[in-house]
């Protein structure tokens, strides 16, 4: 341990406004934020900073003593965002934590964190799917986003430009409006690296969102932090499917940008995605490979008793509500088994839309518990005693064994609904081979 790191001896070139912030003249929040940005520029080898036009903050999600102390330090030293800024999850459902059984002390601290982020001028969106909500960035826009799944979506699907900003750097970027000129902010670094060819896969499997998640899981495993270019996927793909892919790819790997030929904006053709150069290598994604990725996300067996079902990781969209309602209606009035907690995680705005369509009442009658603003990894909403959960989310399936100490059955939304009703793991066999 030592305390020798500071802003002295910086190599990065700063402009007049940057130096003014660093001097502390406008308060210690500006000084700290610029100091972190400048030191990170040196860490990644950036020679100068660039301006960003928007930010999405993930730093409000983790509840710890230091996460509260960080943002309260910013608030107490006149910190305020310089660009429009949205917020990721917080550690509780801000309205319904009591009925979810969250301890009061925990909720109180999480609410303090939430309040502090509002005080610095951020919009209280409280969602990990900001790209399906307010202030989605535009193509080519320089932004500073946190939350790995949101970063993957913003870069890949929207064509906005951000690096995968870690907690507190997102806050520092929002306060200063500046980031190191580095990485995915620069067009040349957005070139595809690995070509992934979909080979011999039955077209029907792509109708399941979970299939896109298992592809994402495979991509993260196969390319780590690289930039994959996927060729051979259907060109009609929903926002929710791309969301599932990106979230899984950013969990099993560090993928911040992927290209899908004919689908994502920087990949009208494979040549365009590779900026005219050759792929570094080529991988064929066969039915076997995708089937294995799907299996790898599960540790529970068919028939195991189910304690909880989790859908909405990342936060459920309007159309995901609709798909769930369709599955529930297909069950002809059957409800969630008494031993199972069916958690549907979403944002307050999506809840409002779903409510207008009558789906909230329908799903509550089925036995679903709607949770807002947060997620099972940041808020204690899955029972401590839970041993087995079922999910259609690749990200949830990836993190749940470590974070929640449970076995997971990964499956389709139909599997989730049927397992919830039976109180036991049910898995539909997919026909992978064309």
């Amino acid at each position, binding site marked *: *341990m*030592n*305390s*020798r*790191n*500071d802003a002295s001896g910086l190599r990065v070139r700063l402009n007049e406004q940057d130096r003014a912030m660093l001097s502390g003249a406008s308060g210690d929040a500006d000084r*700290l934020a610029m*100091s*972190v940005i400048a*030191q*990170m520029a040196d*860490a*990644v080898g950036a020679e100068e900073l660039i301006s960003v036009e928007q930010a999405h903050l*993930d*730093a409000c*999600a*983790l509840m*710890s*003593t*230091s*996460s509260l*102390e*960080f943002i309260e*330090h910013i608030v107490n030293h006149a910190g305020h965002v310089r660009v429009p800024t949205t917020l990721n999850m917080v550690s509780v459902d801000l309205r319904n934590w009591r009925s979810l059984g969250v301890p009061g002390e925990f909720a109180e601290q999480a609410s303090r964190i939430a309040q502090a982020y509002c005080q610095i001028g951020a919009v209280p969106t409280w969602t990990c799917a900001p790209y399906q909500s307010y202030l989605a960035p535009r193509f080519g826009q320089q932004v500073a986003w*946190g*939350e*790995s799944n949101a*970063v993957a979506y913003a870069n890949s699907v929207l064509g906005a430009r951000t*690096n*995968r*900003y*870690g*907690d*507190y*750097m*997102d806050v520092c970027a929002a306060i200063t409006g500046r980031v190191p000129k580095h990485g995915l902010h620069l067009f040349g670094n957005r070139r595809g690296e690995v070509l992934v060819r979909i080979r011999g896969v039955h077209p029907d499997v792509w109708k399941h969102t979970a299939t896109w998640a298992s592809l994402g899981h495979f991509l*993260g495993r196969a390319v*780590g*932090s690289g930039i994959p270019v996927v060729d051979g996927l259907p060109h009609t793909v929903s926002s929710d499917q791309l969301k599932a892919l990106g979230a899984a790819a*950013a*969990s*099993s*790997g*560090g993928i911040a940008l992927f290209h899908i030929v004919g689908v994502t904006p920087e990949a009208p053709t494979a040549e365009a995605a590779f900026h005219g150069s050759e792929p570094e290598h080529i991988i064929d994604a066969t039915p076997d490979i995708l089937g294995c990725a799907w299996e790898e996300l599960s540790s529970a067996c068919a028939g195991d008793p189910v304690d909880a079902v989790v859908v909405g990781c990342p936060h459920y969209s309007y159309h995901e509500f609709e798909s769930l309602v369709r599955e529930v209606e297909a069950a002809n009035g059957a409800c969630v088994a008494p031993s199972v907690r069916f958690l549907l995680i979403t944002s307050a705005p999506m809840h409002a839309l779903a409510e207008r369509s009558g789906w909230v009442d329908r799903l509550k009658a089925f036995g679903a518990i709607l949770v807002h603003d947060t997620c099972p*990894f940041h808020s204690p909403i899955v029972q401590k005693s839970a041993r087995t959960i079922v999910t259609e989310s690749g990200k949830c399936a*990836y*993190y749940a*064994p*470590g*974070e929640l100490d449970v076995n997971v059955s990964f499956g389709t939304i139909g599997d989730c609904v049927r397992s919830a009703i039976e109180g036991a793991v049910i898995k539909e066999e997919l026909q992978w081979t064309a």
Partner: protein
Amino acid sequence: MDGVIRGRMIVRGTAEGRLVLSRISISLWGGVDPETGIVIDRRHDRCGVDISGQIFAFPEEKGSSTASAVLVELIRNGHSPVAIVTRELAPIVALGSIVANELYRKSVPVVTLDAAGFNQLVDGTNLHIGTDGSIRMRAMREG
């Protein structure tokens, strides 16, 4: 390993400790318990190991952008590794250490090695990390 491995110092500092070497990438969030410093990712090769007070080496960071906040909390509560060594540049880990220094005047050195250097690391050896990014093996008495 004998002699010196030359690394690039990403976050400055010195450290001495036993090496916990991992061969696979990790996200500190979801990978390490922020209250205890114990590796909790069941898919990870060092699952169950306490990295508090050790030098933790892994090839690259992955996954969640909350990892930096986990490192800040580990540094605050005294359960952090004494140094982190990676093969690929790990900006989110570096960020955690830089922020902890701003907030608490405490940080851990972060060093990046090239592949050849990383491959020379031996799990369980006692290492000294110098301010210039050099890594030396230290003789160590058992117990």
